């Protein structure tokens, strides 16, 4: 596959339930190897869009194409991507090592000491090497997210989805997580799609972004977040990036 071809192509996607439309005419590409962010305020449908991208929901109108293989369907062989859910979504009854080993034992013939070696390497990669035998209940929220990233990477996907990776983290832990995302992107060449509204994180990691708005029911801006911050004429987008009041732009 030529590297110029986008990793994800979303075309005229419409999201809603029944007659209620959450967003429509959603069209965007995610370039291979880039870090792409989906931005928007609370309730703008960021996380819902992510559910469609990873195949938890099937689109009713429009198309999503991941890796040139069409709309992602779950339960069809080895997952093509890894997902970090908001809280890490680790299985509480398993140690971190067991959590990480699960996808390997499920999808590959790797067993025994090689599993331990790969699990340990991934835990080391996210800085949790010493916590292999801990239960998720025994570690902090930031550590759970990092463990979630490690688990998402066990099958060596070239595409990772992060749902609000730095939400609820202190600024220092959030920066550490952003550094980790940069490492994954630059050193491993992984395409990363992040749903977030954390501004410092956006400016640090994002190559490009789309901004969703619940009033406009769709994408209101796209491009490099730094350029959007400095040059956008749209009051909502300008307000979003400069943290000024959104009330004026919505006529509230």
């Amino acid at each position: 596959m030529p590297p110029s071809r986008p990793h994800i192509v979303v075309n005229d996607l419409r999201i809603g339930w029944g007659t209620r439309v959450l967003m429509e005419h959603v069209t965007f590409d995610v370039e291979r190897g880039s870090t792409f962010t989906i931005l928007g305020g609370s309730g703008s449908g960021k996380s819902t869009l992510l559910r469609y991208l990873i195949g938890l929901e099937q689109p009713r109108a429009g198309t999503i194409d991941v890796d040139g293989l069409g709309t992602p369907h779950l339960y069809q062989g080895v997952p093509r991507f890894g997902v970090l859910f908001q809280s890490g979504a680790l299985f509480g009854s398993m140690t971190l090592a067991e959590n990480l080993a699960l996808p390997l034992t499920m999808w590959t013939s790797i067993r025994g000491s090689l599993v331990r070696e790969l699990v340990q390497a991934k835990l080391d990669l996210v800085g949790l090497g010493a916590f292999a035998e801990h239960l998720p209940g025994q570690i902090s929220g930031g550590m759970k997210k990092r463990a979630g990233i490690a688990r998402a990477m066990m099958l060596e996907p070239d595409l990772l989805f992060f749902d609000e990776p730095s939400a609820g983290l202190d600024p220092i832990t959030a920066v550490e997580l952003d550094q980790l995302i940069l490492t994954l992107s630059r050193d491993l060449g992984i395409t990363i799609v992040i749903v977030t509204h954390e501004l410092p994180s956006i400016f640090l990691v994002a190559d490009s972004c789309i901004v969703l708005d619940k009033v406009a029911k769709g994408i209101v801006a796209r491009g490099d977040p730094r350029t959007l911050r400095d040059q956008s004429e749209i009051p909502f987008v300008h307000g979003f990036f400069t943290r000024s009041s959104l009330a004026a732009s919505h006529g509230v």
Partner: protein
Amino acid sequence: MDVVVRADRDGDRARLTPVGQFDLPHAVTAAHAIANVERALVGCRLVELDLRSVGDIDGTGAVQLASLLDRVESAGPSTQVLDEHNPKAGRLIALYRRRRSASPLAQAEQRSVLARLGLMADRSIGTVRRGLDFIGHDAVAAQRAVAAPRSVDWRALPQLLQQIGADGLPVAAAANLLVGLIIGFLGVSQLGRFGATVYVPELVVVAHFRELGPLVTAIVVAGRSGAGLASEMATMKVSEEIDALRAMGFDPVRWLVVPRCLALVLAVPVLTWIGDVLALVGGLIATTALTDMSARAYVMSTANAISGPVFLGGLAKTPFLALAIGLIACGQGLATQGGAAEVGGRTTAAVVLSIFGVILISSLFTLLYAVMGI
């Protein structure tokens, strides 16, 4: 394509050339290839890793090659990575080597049987102490609930009565009806051998009103509502709702446990009473079906057999049984720590313990009545 690692030995120098795909699908073959080549490195002082023939490589392959280099270095020889023809592979391997933690691989602690036995004994003391602590806390909470009625979630009471009482009625009633039938059948077959079927109505009354009615109803409630209450409490604990109550200055025991226990104490006697009536129906069906006793004669005989001590002796137990179910279920729920798996474990424990507690208390009452001569 096969995955191999070629080794070219030149005196005390060795050059390793991994050939093929070092990725997740080929991890097992790569592991064999690496294990094979490590034996050829004994006595080397310098080991070079030439990455020019590495095809596709991902994190898994990089980890395997990084581990190989680490193992070689820890055995003595120095290593060098030649990555000018494959910088991506070099970068990946370097990343995983850089991130490798200095700490040795943490292993789960292995304990001997004796040590585990000791730990269990040690923990059981704590469990008993926490159980007593909880009962004491409840006793205090009940007093304070009376003194400060606003500290109890009274609005939940009607719904709890509905869940425990009305919703539980069909299964409790069915269980009692069947037990009444069983006693009737047993009475007819055993007493019938002495021609004493005329005493079957009295047997049903005494056996069910005094002993089996409260017990059967309590066991049904323990299985149904005990599990429900325990899992509700456990989920609230896991999702920090209990902590939120505490932080808002509410005593979770007063706010949650008091109305639940009260609902049980109110509902279980009523369920038992209805169950008693249905057991009489069961006995009636069995007796009139198997013998020539008329329904009228059965009812008359039953009416004569029902006495204050028999009826009230049975009902008097029920609040205690209900309280035991409530305390055990809520106590287990509130003791939950950790995640989803613990919720299931605590719910199971609540049901098992409350059924056992119900049987134990019932036995104690039987003993007490025997001593009192009732």
